[in-house]
């Protein structure tokens, strides 16, 4: 039996992950239990699910920790009870709290869009709005900080969960990665400072929210939106020219590898360990010199690692 615990049930990213896991589980003839927190940052929900899965006899747990530190003690308990614990997409702090980590480097994802944006702005003075996740969530900080570092506007510790900032950032809002909130936040940012010409978004729903607001303001020509995830809908956004560039991740791959690893452990008792980067690719149709990227055709073909 394999247990998969995601941050939420409804974020397409995790839906994809679940999809991959259940396919793989079927192939391997393993039983998959799934659980999730009520919302991003709901640690207790994840702990409860974890405990119940161990009780239900799960050999291994695949988890995307909502709170990279808070989950640790529970994970250690699970490991003491002999379960293999693998973190997907997001590292725990310390990373050693889990047997293995299959993840994207979120900081690098941020850096990539940062570098691209820097190049794409071509000397134009950036006036930046950042639509963030919510305080205290590492992934949010890593992407945000990575972005600013890529822009060359700030230096940041890749593992910090605190947002850095820079004078060029004129408006920062939490969106909880939610499209409606992203839209409201962008609307207010624009009425605060109409000169914004570059928008960083924590994920693609937020990006689309921002785009709706920007189009309503008739500024879609003058503002670049960069984002992270590379989901099929996100890449479609790149194709449509709504999102200028996005860093693509591969949840399906993470899940598949995860289930594989647990099944092996159940069979042979040998544990995987260490960090496996499942890779991140910058997707844009306006490739910039010196910034490695692939176009949206590639993005579509691989969005979140379908096939």
């Amino acid at each position, binding site marked *: 039996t394999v247990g998969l615990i995601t941050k939420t049930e409804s974020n397409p990213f995790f839906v994809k992950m679940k999809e991959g896991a259940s396919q793989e589980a079927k192939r391997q003839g393993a039983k998959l239990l799934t659980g999730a927190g009520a919302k991003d940052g709901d640690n207790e929900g994840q702990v409860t699910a974890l405990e119940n899965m161990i009780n239900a006899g799960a050999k291994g747990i695949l988890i995307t920790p909502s709170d990279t530190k808070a989950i640790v003690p529970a994970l250690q308990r699970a490991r003491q009870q002999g379960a293999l614990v693998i973190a997907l997409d997001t590292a725990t702090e310390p990373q050693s709290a889990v047997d293995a980590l299959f993840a994207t480097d979120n900081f690098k994802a941020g850096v990539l869009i940062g570098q691209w944006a820097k190049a794409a702005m071509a000397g134009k003075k950036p006036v930046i709005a950042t639509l963030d996740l919510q305080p205290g969530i590492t992934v949010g900080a890593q992407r945000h900080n990575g972005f600013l570092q890529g822009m060359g506007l700030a230096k940041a510790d890749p593992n910090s969960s605190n947002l850095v900032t820079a004078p060029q950032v004129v408006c920062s809002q939490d969106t909880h990665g939610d*499209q409606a909130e992203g839209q409201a936040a962008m609307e*207010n940012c624009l009425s605060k400072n109409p000169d914004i010409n570059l928008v960083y978004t924590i994920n693609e*729903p937020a990006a689309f929210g921002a785009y709706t607001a920007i189009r309503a303001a008739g500024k879609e020509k003058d503002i670049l939106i960069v984002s992270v995830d590379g989901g099929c809908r996100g890449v479609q956004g790149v194709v449509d020219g709504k999102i200028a560039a996005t860093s693509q991740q591969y949840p399906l791959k993470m899940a598949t590898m995860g289930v594989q690893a647990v099944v092996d452990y159940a069979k042979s008792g040998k544990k995987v360990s260490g960090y496996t980067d499942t890779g991140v690719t910058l997707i844009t149709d306006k490739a910039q010199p010196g910034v490695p990227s692939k176009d949206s055709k590639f993005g579509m073909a691989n969005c979140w690692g379908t096939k």
Partner: protein
Amino acid sequence: MSTVATTSPAPPRTDFLRSLGSFPILGPVAALILACIFFATQSDRFLSGANFSLILQQVVVVGTLAIGQTLVILTGGIDLSNGMIMALSSVLMTGLYANSGMDPYLAVLVGMAVCVAFGVVNGWLHTFIGLPPFIVTLGTYSIAYSLVRIYTTATITDVPPALNFFGDTFRIGSTAITYGTVAMIVLYVIAWFVLRSTPAGRAVYAVGDNPEAARLAGIHTGRVLIAVYTIAAISYGIAGLLLVGRMGVGDPNTGQNGNLESITAVVLGGTSLLGGRGYIMGTLVGALIVGVFRNGLQLMGIGSNYQVLITGVLVILAASVDYLSHRGK
């Protein structure tokens, strides 16, 4: 709940002056104006037609949810399910077209029908089984929540043009106003009229004030309650429509805070959670108060943590203003 311990739900046109003296939603209005003055002094961008139009747009969805919530609360109930009913209807209205190729208008009808179904269930469980509305709607919240996700976890982007209508704008002078804003205001006017000047409206207040007396006065309290929960649910469906118009997508993640946010608007508007006393227009003002806070604080560039802090304080202040403005009576 002395906040609303004042005179008739319907001050007669005849003695206009007295009705002003006991102008029921004086408190909320005062609070709103104070808030506006404050922000006007803090940010030069606040006082602009464009910005107000923006605030209205941001209030449309919660404001519309709060119409139904007001009806329910006037009967002494509470509806926790409203946000999720809205979410369900909005994904259905968009999804049935996008995924099942259904005619958009038909899709809207189906979405509305589902709302009606939920409303009837809420009302029926409350009236005929006698369960507390809090529990009933908590249950239907969960049910709608999961139905949404069982139907789709992917945001529905392929929205028929027809459904974008409420997001479109027309201009008054230089400021663009969305049809959604207009729709919400029209709904408020209708609700205001019905509550104030129709037998049905009277029945709502009567049932909320004293159900047994209402029954013995010849009112079918059961029917009134079911009607209220159903009409409320329809307003949630309309909110869903406006949401789609505003965002241009059908978003399965929406609506989770709709209940608390709408209740806040209702209570800030001076309606008693005990039922029987309240004013629909107060709810609109209550919704605006929240919208103004959020917008104003962001214009001031205050960090999100402090925004929440200040909002908390202001909510209490606003309510106090309302209360104190009625203290005399």
